[in-house]
């Protein structure tokens, strides 16, 4: 095992390199037949990307809920910041984005269990939308909290850092767009 990576976010999870040096594994542990590894890995990602989309939705909800609460407490110019349209509209946009991402994600999950139905495109659509949404919503939450959003004393900066990797791992946003466009252009 390599040393644990020092990460921007997800810091309570452990991530490290794994080095294999003449590691002996009984052949019965091989998953699938020889030559099936790559197709199995890709099918696995079709499924797992829906989970990453759900992570995006969850992180965004945390950022949104914190923002709604804070905007009804913090005052500027003699009124709650939620009463400034600039903040109120951001809250509205956050909610719309979260709902849209959530339904894309739930639809992909339901579709994934219909026998014989392909769902690579739906899984990637949920992943790219929900994770990019989480980054936007977490960034807005930081803005709404102002200096407190930049401080480790408050949770929103953690949401911002945790959101960042969701557009990278289990296929970057660019990879999702490749999957989506290839499926569309293949008529699927």
């Amino acid at each position: 095992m390599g040393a644990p990576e020092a990460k921007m976010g997800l810091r309570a999870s452990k991530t490290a390199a794994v080095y294999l040096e003449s590691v002996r594994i009984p052949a019965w542990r091989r998953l699938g037949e020889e030559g099936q590894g790559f197709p199995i890995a890709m099918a696995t990602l079709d499924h797992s990307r829906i989970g990453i989309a759900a992570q995006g939705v969850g992180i965004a909800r945390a950022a949104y809920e914190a923002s709604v609460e804070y905007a009804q407490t913090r005052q500027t110019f003699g009124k709650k910041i939620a009463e400034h349209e600039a903040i109120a509209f951001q809250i509205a946009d956050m909610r719309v984005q979260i709902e849209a991402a959530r339904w894309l994600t739930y639809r992909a999950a339901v579709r994934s269990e219909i026998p014989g139905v392909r769902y690579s495109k739906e899984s990637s659509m949920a992943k790219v939308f929900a994770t990019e949404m989480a980054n936007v919503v977490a960034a807005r939450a930081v803005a709404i909290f102002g200096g407190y959003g930049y401080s480790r004393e408050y949770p929103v900066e953690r949401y911002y850092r945790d959101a960042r990797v969701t557009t990278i791992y289990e296929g970057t946003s660019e990879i999702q767009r490749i999957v989506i466009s290839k499926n569309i252009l293949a008529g699927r």
Partner: protein
Amino acid sequence: MNFDLSEDQERIRQAVRDFAENEIAPGVAERERDERFPKDIVRKLGEMGILGMMVPEEYGGAGLDALSYIVAVEELARVCASTAVIMSVNNSVFCYPVWKYGSERQKREILSEVASGRALGAYALSEPQSGSDAANQKTRARRDGEDYVLDGAKSWITNAGEAEWYLVMTMTQPDR
């Protein structure tokens, strides 16, 4: 089209939310600041059946549907995204492919341990030179009698060092 979760799915959402707020939220900022893996929380998630949610009960899982799993990930991520990724890796990149593509022996001897949370799983696909170009694999498995012998390096492995089981992508016929 029905947009409501079923009663069972709602019950799972509430149970995971309650667990997240009561058991995960306390100390979440400190664990993340100190980079401390939440061992006790992961053990409790296993006891709740949250680490192998879609795996049939006969293989140690909870036998639930995909939407139940997705809702559980969402509720965990709302409180602690680190816990959510530990859990989602175990469920969807370890348990799922072993359940879908594994042999009966693999399901009995390996999946039942990981889906029940008695052991943790990890998934090793990326390599130092292979990320988005996932097919560009250098790890090799050479057949030797009843074994394979593996050589290579894997990068960015979630749960590495905490997991007992690793699903490793490797080339058996590199020339093909």
